[in-house]
């Protein structure tokens, strides 16, 4: 059980970190859309174009790392041993 919790903890921490790094290392809040500015050729005005894209932020990364920490902490707890019979 301890080994399973520790492995889960490592997997969760690694998966969260790799996903966060791969999807843009966003140091802000998690985004569900990304806006880029384009320029209209006639008016030369800049305008936003928003596309739906999931970009995890430090809030989600922190939540996953905290979850991994909880799992690792649980693995350190001693299992209850039945009271020795007289």
């Amino acid at each position, binding site marked *: 059980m301890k080994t399973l919790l520790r492995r889960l903890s490592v997997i969760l921490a690694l998966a969260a970190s790799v996903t966060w790094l791969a999807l843009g290392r966003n140091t*802000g*809040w*998690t*985004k*569900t*859309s*990304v*806006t880029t500015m384009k320029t*209209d050729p*006639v*008016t*030369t*005005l*800049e*305008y*936003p174009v*928003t596309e739906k894209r999931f*970009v995890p*932020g430090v809030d989600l990364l922190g939540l996953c790392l905290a979850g991994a920490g909880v799992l690792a902490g649980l693995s350190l707890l001693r299992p209850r041993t039945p009271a020795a019979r007289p």
Partner: protein
Amino acid sequence: MRLHSKILFALSTATALSAAPLSFDFKDPKGVNNAVFKLDAPLEAINGTANGVSGTLSFDPENPSKTTGSIVVGTGSLHVANPMMKDHMLGAQWLDAAAHPEIRFEIARIGAVKADGGNFSGEVTGKFTLHGVTKEITVPVKATYLKDKLGMRVPNQKGDLLVLRSTFTVKRSDYGINPGAPQDKVSDEIEITLSLAGASPR
């Protein structure tokens, strides 16, 4: 005599037409018209956009200081990338989009007008309504009159374009937008940049 009268009539009509202010509609079907807002607090920067722009302006290229009309931004069109932040922003504690569905600027007067060909700049004073609170503010505006350029944006449509650019700052506390919220997390100052193109079809 008849010919003379006709020429006079044609000349007077042409003069009247050229002097008449043009009506520009800012409901842009291409969705280019937008407002960008920025709140730069020490602990958090919030950036967003809005594209629900409408409104009409009456603009005379020969007399830009006489421009009248209003620009409206739909509160519900304000967008930030984080969905929870967007819900909060449009909710009752902040902008209360349900109760105050429009952000409006109505021109009262224009001063310090400078003209350079089709380019104009000036200080526009008007009534700015945000979160149901109306205050008179003065903002710098740059305008570009693009005669006969509407067809380049809308095929087979003759007409003119009026491009407006303005950047100004308002304080959310002046408009009763959650004035008690900590200013180190949500800045009191909101920088607004308007990029608008109005169409005057013929």
